[in-house]
C-alpha cells in the first residue's frame, strides 16, 4: 500500500467530527463520503485522493459506534489511518467491515511523518517506509485474531 499522508496533529478525533450526526440517516455511501471529516476539516473532500492515509494522535475515532465513520473515510479513498491509539468500536468496525486499516504507530513516527509525505505500508513486515524522507518506522503488529480477519478481508470472510 502506497499513498500520501493527510496529517491532523490532534488527539481524540471523534466520530462526531469524522461523520456528523445529522448524516447518520444516509446509507448511500458515496453521499456519506462527501461529508467525511466535515466537523474537523471542511476541505477534506476536495483534497483527499484514492489511496491516501490519515495520520493522527491518540484515541482516534472515539465516541459513537456509527460504522458510517470508517465507511465515509473508506469511500473517500482512505486506505489506512495511522494513529497513536484507536477507540475500540472504530477500530473493530474498520477491521470487521474491511473498510480501512487502523495502524498503531509510535511517537517517533507520529512526529517524524509530515503532511503530504508518501508512505509505503507493509503489514507482512509490520513496517512503514517514508519514501519522501527515506526512513523506516515500525507499526504495532495486529493482535492474532485481528491479523487473521484483516488477511481474510473482513469478519464475514473469516472462518473461525
Amino acid at each position, binding site marked *: 500500500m502506497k499513498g500520501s499522508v493527510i496529517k491532523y496533529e490532534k488527539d*481524540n478525533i*471523534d466520530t*462526531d*467530527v469524522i461523520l*456528523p*450526526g*445529522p448524516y*447518520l*440517516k*444516509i*446509507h448511500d*455511501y458515496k453521499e456519506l463520503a462527501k461529508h467525511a471529516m466535515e*466537523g*474537523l476539516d471542511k476541505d477534506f473532500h476536495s483534497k483527499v485522493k484514492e489511496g491516501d492515509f490519515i495520520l493522527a494522535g*491518540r*484515541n482516534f475515532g*472515539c*465516541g*459513537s*459506534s*456509527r*460504522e*458510517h465513520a*470508517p465507511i465515509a473515510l473508506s469511500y473517500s479513498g482512505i486506505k489506512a489511518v495511522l494513529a497513536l*491509539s484507536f*477507540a*475500540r*468500536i472504530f477500530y*473493530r*468496525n474498520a477491521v*470487521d*467491515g474491511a473498510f480501512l486499516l487502523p495502524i498503531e504507530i509510535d511517537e517517533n513516527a507520529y512526529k517524524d511523518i509530515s503532511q503530504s509525505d508518501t508512505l509505503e505500508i507493509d503489514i507482512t513486515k509490520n513496517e512503514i517506509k517514508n519514501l519522501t524522507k527515506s526512513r523506516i518506522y515500525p507499526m504495532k503488529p495486529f*493482535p*492474532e*485474531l485481528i491479523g487473521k480477519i484483516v488477511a481474510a478481508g*473482513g*469478519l*464475514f470472510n473469516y472462518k*473461525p
Partner: protein
Amino acid sequence: MGMNITEKILARASGKTSLAPDDVVFVNVDKVMIHDVSGPGVIAVFEKLKKQGMKIDKLWDPSKVWVAEDHFVPSADKISAQNIVLLTNFTKEFGISKHFKYGMGQYGICHTLSHEEAMVLPGEVYVGGDSHTNTTGALGAFAAGLGHTDVAYVLLNGKIWFKIPPTIYFKLNGKLPNHVMAKDFILKIIGDIGNDGAAYKTMQFGGSGVSEMSVEERLTLTNMTTEAGAKSGIIEPDKKLRDYLSTRGATKYKEVHGDQDAQYEKLYEYEASELEPTVAKPFSPENISVARDLSSIELDKAYIGSCTGAKLEDLRAVAKILKGRHVKIRTEILPAAISIFKKAMDEGLLKIFMDAGVMIGPPTCGACCGAHMGVLAKDEVCISTTNRNFPGRMGHLESKTYLASPLVAAASAVTGKITDPRDLK
C-alpha cells in the same frame, strides 16, 4: 484464580471454564438490538452479502432480537421516514416481533427500553448497534456497543468475538449528598481518568454508595462508561435490581456475581461526601469543573432528555427544582420513553414543567446527536443532561454544550447561567 462478573458471564457464553483479560473468544449472544440508525446499516450489509452470493433468508434467532426507533423520529424528512419503512419491512421479513414502533404503544430510546421493558436480564450477553449499549450493564449483564457489520454477523451467527477486557473497579463509599447525582460522580471519574482512560476495558461500580443508589441512577454510571472509552460498564445484581425487574415482570434469570478473589486491574475509591455538582465543559466529557466555578457562563438553552438524563427519577429531580419557578431560557424536556412520559403525567410532573414555561417533547435522540428537534445555532450555549459534547454534537460546530445532571440543568434553566442547585434561591 477467581473471576469477576464480566469474566464469568463471558466464560459461560463462550463455553470456557475460565477466562482472563486479553483472551480472545467468540461468545454466544443472548440479546441483540438495532435501531433506525444501525438497522438500515445492517440491511445494507445483508444486501452486500447477497450480492456476493450468500443466501440470507433467516436470522439465527429472531426471538432474541429487538428493535427500537429513536434517533430520527418523529421523521422530519423523507430519508428518515424511508428508514422506518426499511426497518418495518425487515422485521416482517425476518419475523422479529419485538419492535417498539414509534407512535404505537410503548416506544422510546433504546437504552431506556432495555431496562424499562426488561429486554435484557442479569447474566446475559447483550450487544446493540449503538455505543451507549453499555448502559444496560447496570442490570448485571455484559452489554457492549457494536457497528453494523458486527451486528449483522450476530444476527446471522448468534455469536461475536470479544477480547476479554481488564476490569477497573470504582468504589463509592457513603451516600451521595443532597443535590449530587450519579451524573456528577461519573463526570468526576471521566475527568480523573480521561476520555480514553478505560479504553478496551470494563468499568465496574460498587461500594455502599452504589448499593444506596436507585437502579435508574446506576444506569447513568454505566451509560457514560462509553465516554471513557470503555468496552462495557457493569454493576453486580442486588435486591434493588431484583425488585426493579420484578415490577417489570421479569423474575426468571440467572444472576452472575464475581468470585470473592476476583481480579481487577485497578481500584479507584471515592468518598461520596466529597463529591459536588459537576459539569463537563466543551468539547469533551473529560473537561470537567465544579458547577460553582462556572456560574458566570450564560446559557441560551437547557436540554433535559436522552438515555442519560430523562428517566423518571431524572424528571422528578427536575420537577423538584422547577416547582413554583419559571425558566429564564429556552428549556426542552423530553422523557426517554413514552411509559416514563405517562408516569410523569400521572405524578403531576408535566404540569410543573408546563407551569415553569418549559417545552415538553416526545422521546427521541434527535437533539442529543444534533439531528433534529432542537439543534443549536452558531454560538449558542446549552446545558444538557446528555452524555457527549464533542464539537458540533448538538448542532452548529461553533455551538457549545455543557454536560450536567438533571438538577444542575434545571437550576441553570431557572437562572439562565450555570448554577449549582445548592445556590438556587
